[in-house]
């Protein structure tokens, strides 16, 4: 048996303490401590696991809202509903009035739309967990959440022509909304290091025009999205994406002729009038349509 050379050869020490001699008694003696350590480790694992693995989080929402149907199939501009994104820090969940401005008319018989209208009309509803949600609005489950200390401004990124999908992924394909990116600090830096922002490769110290200001600097971001293959966002498999009970049936319904189409088929004399509205005039529109912006046109909904 080899021994390390530096260690003096000596017989095993004669007096051995009781605890050393019987390892099992260690456990018996310190079991509360060990239990605490185990609990800490287990708890810590779950705590940090959650902190790092929010990517792919896709909670079931109180209303089976499909981004695929609205943004993908109907091609409604993201900013039609999330109009706050180009104005302020928060993209914002659209107010109920935005939902109801279309759904007063469109698809108003579907179960989830009826549920939506009921919430708006009655002023409260009972959530899945049995709690009563007040205010006449849907209490959506939050998908994306940045830590409190992060200062993130949607409007600056929208102004710099960063597409929504750059961070939020292919929303137009998502039946159930999920967190696409991991939203970690290194993920932010991945992008910001490529631009002319602080620390970016083309920022010229002393020349403010190359620095942090101006839309032109964000060309790098735009180019990269289409051309630069070196930037690879860490795509991860979405774990356990929630399947929505209503989601599977929703898109099929859109193929059915809409109310307007039905109406026009029955009343052809109005068809020319509808076509003669190339530019919207707010006065021509019913009250429920006033909130629309020019990025969306009639055929967005009334296909």
């Amino acid at each position, binding site marked *: 048996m080899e021994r390390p050379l530096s260690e003096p050869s000596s017989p095993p020490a004669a007096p051995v303490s009781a605890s050393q001699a019987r390892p099992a008694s260690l456990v018996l003696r310190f079991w509360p401590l060990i239990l605490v350590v185990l609990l800490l480790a287990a708890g810590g694992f779950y705590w940090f696991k959650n*902190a790092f693995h929010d990517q792919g*989080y896709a909670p079931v929402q109180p209303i089976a809202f499909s981004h695929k149907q609205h943004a993908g199939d109907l091609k409604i501009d993201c900013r039609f509903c999330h109009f706050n994104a180009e*104005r302020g820090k928060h993209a914002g*969940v659209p*107010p109920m009035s935005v939902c109801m401005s279309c759904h007063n008319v469109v698809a108003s018989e579907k179960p989830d739309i009826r549920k939506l209208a009921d919430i708006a009309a009655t002023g409260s509803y009972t959530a899945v967990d049995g709690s009563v949600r*007040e205010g006449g609005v849907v209490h959506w489950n939050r998908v994306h959440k940045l830590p*409190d200390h992060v200062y993130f401004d949607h409007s600056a990124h929208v102004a710099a022509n960063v597409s929504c999908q750059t961070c939020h992924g292919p929303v137009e394909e998502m039946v159930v909304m999920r967190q696409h990116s991991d939203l970690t600090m290194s993920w932010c830096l991945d992008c910001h290091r490529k631009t002319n922002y602080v620390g970016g490769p083309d920022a010229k110290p002393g020349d403010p025009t190359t620095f*942090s*200001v101006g839309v032109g600097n964000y060309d790098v971001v735009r180019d990269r999205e289409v051309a630069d293959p070196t930037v690879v966002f860490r795509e991860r498999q979405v774990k356990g994406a929630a399947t929505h009970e209503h989601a599977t049936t929703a898109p099929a319904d859109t193929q059915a002729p809409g109310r307007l189409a039905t109406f026009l088929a029955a009343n052809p004399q109005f068809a020319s009038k509808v076509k003669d509205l190339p530019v919207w005039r707010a006065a021509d529109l019913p009250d429920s349509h006033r909130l629309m912006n020019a990025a969306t046109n009639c055929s967005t909904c009334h296909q």
Partner: protein
Amino acid sequence: MKKIWSDPADLNGAPARDEFAPDVAAAIADLRARGGIDSPDCPEQVDSQRNDLHFAFPGVNRRSFMQLTGAAAVLAVVSGCSDPHPDTLVPYAQQPDGSTLGVGLWYSTVVRVNGTARPVMAKAYDGRPIKLDGNPDHPLVRGRSDARTQAALLDLYDPDRGGIDPAQPKVFHDGPKRRDGAAFVTTTWADLDSSVGAALKSGRVLLITGPVDGPARLAHLADLQSAFGERLSHVAYHPWAADSARAARQIVLGERSVPRWNLAKASVLVAFGSDLLADGDTATQVAYGAFRRGSNGEPGQVICVEPTLSQLGTCADVRIRASMDSMAWIAWAVANEVAAATGGTIPPAISQALPAAIEPIAKQLRKVRTAEGETHAITWMAQRLLAARAANGVGVAYVGGAVHSGPESLDLQVATTWLNRLLGAEGVAVVGEAPVATRDGLIEALSKPWDVVIVAGGANPAFDLPGAAEALAKTKLLVSLNPTRDETTALAAWHAPGLHDLESWGDASSAAGVVELQQPVIHPLWDSRAAEDSLSAFAVAALGDAAPASLVTARVPVAANATVSVVSRKQLWGAAERGVLPWRLYVQRVWSDAVAKAAGTAATGDAFWRAALSRGYVTVARQVMPVDRMFREVSAPVAQAPAPLSLICTASRTIGDGSQLNNAWLQEIPDPVSKVCWDGWAAFSPADAASSDIASNDVVALTVDGTTVQLPALVQDGQHPGCVEVFLGWGRTSAGIVAGITADDGFRANAYLLAKGRRWGSAVTVAKTGKRYELAQTQHHHRLAGEQVAIDDILELHRADPGAAKRNHKAHAWENGTDGKPGGRLSIWRSHQTYPGHRWGMAIDLDLCTGCNACMVACNAENNVPVVGRDEVRKNREMHWIRIDRYFSAPAGEADARLDVAVLHQPMLCQQCDNAPCEAVCPANATVKNDEGINVQIYNRCIGTRYCSNNCPYKVRRFNWYQYSAFRAGPQGSGQPDIRLVKHVMTEGNHVAAVELAHQPLQMMLNPEVTVRHRGVMEKCNFCIQRQRSWRTDEKRQGKRVADGHLTSACAQSCPTAAITWGDLNDQESQVLKQSNDPRAYLALDAESNTRPKVAYLRKLRNRPATAEELVALHEHGSEKAEKP
């Protein structure tokens, strides 16, 4: 060499006060005496002397604390194993027009503080006002505000308005109240209206309100008056009402008006025993800034004749001590000299008595030293006033404020009004305005019997008018419409809680010719309604069909409009249901009709109303003051037998008239002169203190007219011998929990009630009680070691050689090229960082700083700076990110060095050093420089070693010892759950339902853009980094640089005199760069510490004559300069 000190201990050459708190220092000394912790003499419980733990967790020692902490950690981890996103996102049902999530909206409105209107813009996030600032368009305030206006926001969210009962701290007891025996019981509005209305059907009614000046409010009162006729008397009351000034103007000018000082038109100001700055409204302080800046580069000169050191006295160029009772004669003596020079006259009774009366007084006045020699103070003042006149300027005399509102000041008011008329200041720098309040009138009214007395609009005579509590207790029915349960409400039979100004409609007039519209920026937080709504409801209930048509409306069933929210249904439809015209509609009607006509604008009716709402004010024709030409004979001031010590009751310079006593922000800002917070005190002259063996913090018993009160004493440098100064506003008994904890130990001295309301001149006897009480005084906290910190200069010398001071500043070793480069500096830093984008900087003009604390309160509101409470302030733990250091100085050889002091105020905040000493010592890299030159503090990296604070030469870093944000007034009340109302701190993304918020209203005040710091973390000023972010975001949105002045820091925005400038030092056009390059600019401690700060201070220039020695010294420096190659 002149002496400079901030603490009297400095004068004796004593070492700087031990940095440790006294208890820690004592514990260390004890440990040393026992031979250290390892010695056998040392008891096992050394820690027991540091009883902080015991006080936070009774019965817990350090070991069990560690055990509990471990258990808590395990529990925290276990409880953390839950849904990672507990949040729900609650959208709007319909997003209000013009609102953007995460972007604040500004509403123009007006709040009333100390009885005067303050035009403000309220910034609201999601319907919650979080910041008040001056209305930028308003011609008198120009976007500026002051400490008490800023703090009005905290009054709005004061949980005590919800009627906290200490027995049931978790339940709020808001809503209308009826007296049942000794207690109030909740009732309904309908019950209250019908009961009070029934009582009003007959009998004589007295309505006491606060000052009333808005057109709709005046019209409403006129309607009530016409409805009730002779039965109703109305008195607008304020304890500081300028009754003596009104009487004096009647005597001298024959005009029924009160004066307003239009300082921007003046060039020399002589104040007689009055504090223009502390008592003045925002507009006055803004005007002081313009006056001090001067037109055509000639700064205004401030001369103070005063017995106690006032805030204006700390800014005075020449300050002459004199007793208060000699003040009238001094003013007449000045008037006499002015009259002689201008060919005017003074009244014959005065000119006869003047020579004999002024002789003993003149002997005691100090001489003004000039290069030619010494000039007598009275002659010199007259010369200055005449010189201003000769130079096409205006010299003006000022008397006013709380201390000179009573009849005892009539002689002085007459003298100064006369003097102003002689000087030609009347109508130019002093203009008459309609009086809006009276004190004498209420004393007279309360001497008669009344059947019903209604108190509204914050009038609180039971607290601040001697004898009023007894008189009100005798009335048959007292109804209070005040928003809080104040002392008058405590006597009332009915309480119909009114609204805070930010919850209510209304209007006001901050000066003659300007009227402001008041709009609510939040729904009423509690079940309360506007006092005007209550009055209308009472009138309708009492008079029925005889009620004036302007107060009634068609009855509307409650359920008629289901879409209005629950709260507004309660407010609006509750009144409409009973046929009472809601107050909002009343205001709208008056404004779109009468006010629109008075304004004479192109827009009328509804368009005018909307424009007025948006702008917040309109200008109207000035009211012509009624003149009756009933001149009275001016009689000579009656000489009184001089008392060895006389009492002076001045207004508190922090809490104002006392209505804001429950405001923890105002309680915690240090007094500008004495740097005391959280307590009232009695100030003594150093001479009196020495002769009667009184030291600061001795508890003394003051006896005035047979009444004895106890107060802690403070020896105040600069105070004239023979007077004791006490402060009005303290000593309330039912202001709320915050005020209550300031009133322990029996110091409930209410200066309003002393001496039967006489504000000065009463004889007072002082006895030591032998007790001691430590005033929370910040003057010796955070002392800076170094010479070049606060620098002043004399205007004349500075003009002779603007570069002298800069050349002569002390150069240190590293400035002499020791790093091998000529002109280079020795530094441990490899190189300075460059900031190619923005480089934020600040310039502070010490000449304009009045020490008013507006910046501190603005910073409190903007940056969620918590209040720590009195006990923690005593331990140097105040959290203010910006503080104002106050330095005294006196020329060498001055005999009365501690009496004739010159004062310098210096705002001190993080200097954002390029060579930041804090950054080098942080083991966690928690404090680093960002790319725009800001020394940022990263809270979630900070581990609380406090090395950075120890290494900061400016002492601006603050350590959060107790999660102060969880307390209303510091952790001294941690054992009392009712004081810990705000336990859960709301941060962005942690949406709490509105119902919960209403019950914890202080959370709603937090600025959502600023992190609420946790315990154990260092924090400090970051130049309002959230505003830099939005500046940069705006640039990104627009794709170009935005111009200077786009945004500014909260302190710079609030500063009433515009002493603080903030902006981008890289912008060649920026104001801050111009200021930083001013010849007066210097960098504090830069020469000593080589810190390269980004805050430039501009020397204070004392506008007084240079003495011969000072001229010689300048000449010597000049010759040195000439000898250098």
